[in-house]
């Protein structure tokens, strides 16, 4: 296999407690720590391991977003990706648009395997990989917790509601990864220096002539209904009494 494409989305760091703006116009992202979507880090780690085993020759990271997403692409390069592509867009692009952009790059760069996160932790959509598989006409293996390549096929263990499921797909394919697939490496300082010299191509989304599809409009945002802090009991007897009172024990 030659080339693996990995999607890296810039999102609010998973440790940040996100708050809805008072005017309901969105969530507060000013001055908030931004990171690579955690699932995408796992996807990149897997791609790098495949390359290190000699089963691929190039790992390319791609992000669709504003110029700030270059930070996450640079981190990806420091982890070990060979080159990066920023598809520059001021507006946030919905999953179908992202999938169509990825398809465009797949055709241009002759990609053999696409590794994405199973979901982006901002919009929690979990759509992009499945949509890409649909428009590319290639197999999808979502929620992967284990991946074995064997020539022209891949065996993928998927985390599903009933437990685990193993499927075999022909390559090229789209695989979306779950957190248990691997543990991503830490970036070392010398790698950050080296990453500055690696190629980062910037393409304006308008130049790709992509139809983003019918758009879903975000009308408003609100904080979720809060649960109220309840009572504290002193001991197990108190707990049993409280459960009995509610008819739960």
């Amino acid at each position, binding site marked *: 296999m030659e080339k693996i494409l990995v999607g890296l989305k810039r999102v609010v760091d998973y440790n940040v407690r996100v708050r809805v703006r008072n005017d309901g116009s969105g969530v507060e992202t000013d001055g908030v720590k931004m990171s690579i979507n955690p699932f995408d880090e796992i996807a990149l780690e897997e791609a790098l391991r495949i390359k290190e085993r000699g089963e691929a020759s190039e790992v390319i990271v791609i992000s669709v977003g504003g110029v700030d997403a270059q930070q996450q692409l640079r981190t990806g390069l420091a982890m070990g990706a060979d080159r990066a592509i920023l598809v520059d867009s001021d507006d946030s692009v919905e999953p179908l648009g992202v999938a169509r952009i990825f398809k465009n790059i797949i055709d241009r760069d002759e990609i053999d395997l696409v590794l994405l996160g199973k979901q982006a932790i901002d919009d929690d959509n979990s*759509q992009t990989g499945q949509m890409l598989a649909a428009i590319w006409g290639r197999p999808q293996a979502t929620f992967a917790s284990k991946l074995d390549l064997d020539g022209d096929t891949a065996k993928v263990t998927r985390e599903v509601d009933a437990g685990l*499921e193993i499927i075999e797909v022909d390559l090229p394919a789209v695989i979306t990864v779950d957190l248990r697939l691997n543990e991503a490496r830490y970036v070392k300082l010398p790698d950050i220096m080296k990453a500055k010299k690696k190629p980062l191509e910037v393409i304006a989304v308008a130049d790709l002539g992509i139809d983003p599809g*019918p758009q879903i409009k975000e009308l408003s945002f609100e904080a*979720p209904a809060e649960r109220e802090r309840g009572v504290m009991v002193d001991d197990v*007897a108190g707990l049993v009494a409280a459960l009995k009172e509610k008819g739960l024990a």
Partner: protein
Amino acid sequence: MSKILIIAEHDGSTLNPGTAKTVTCAASIEGAEIDIVVLASAAAAVAAQASSLELVTRVLTVERAENEHPIAALLAPQIAAIASGYSHVFGPSTTFGKDLMPHVAALLGVNQISDIMNAESSHTFKRPIYAGNAVATVEAPGDSIVVGTVRIASYAAAKGGNAAAIESIDVAVDIPPHTRLIEVLSGASDRPDLQTAAKVVAGGRALGSEDNFNLIYKLADKLGAGIGASRAAVDAGYVPNELQVGQTGKIIAPDLYIAIGISGAIQHLTGIKDAGTIVAINKDEESPIFEVADIGLVADLFTAVPELTDSLD
């Protein structure tokens, strides 16, 4: 008027309860006419169960050998072909629906509304984002088909007692040969299913080992409860992945949820927000789990849990 097609989730013999909850969501849209489609190698048993659900007009069956197992890339082209007569296509927001529905949406050339928690109207929906830290109200364009997954923890199951017409249909589309099921490894369990159990007892990292999880099982047995776990407990190998509750596990809404040795990370809490009563047992009174617990006990689980189990006779 909205014509809504719901994709049945099943294992070849039993309709998954998520389907009945998806029906409830669809029925909340004014003037909805609801059909369910069962794609299977042999559909009769599942179709009969689907036909009994209230508010369903028709059950369509598509029988093909390739539909023996639910593989998204194989089912999606068939669904896309049937979808043309409908204004909406819905599936449950289970791993089945999450895998399948976006593939269908892309074949139909639209974005998907994921995790519908409320239908405000036929084209306006509420859905959680940022691990449930915010709720967005979104509007799908009025002139294209709406594809969505339904957050099943937000809906009660539609009742039975109906006898909707069952109709077998042929769908003449090619099915790609590029994906093959090798094996399903599901932990068979005679305990109540996590996603539908009225009571759930869940353990976290603090349990410390697979053996110690027996404390959780014993308490669950006393209560007739299902078992859940935090991601940390699953990662450590104490329990299998299908027991994980949270943003990347199962979103559940039992009447009673007992969290034992679980800190209450935001990714975990998003899975239990809709529980009736949350009980927390944790030795650290500062644990965030206590901010959402209805009943909290600060205690060492290794003494408190056996004591609790013993007092529930």
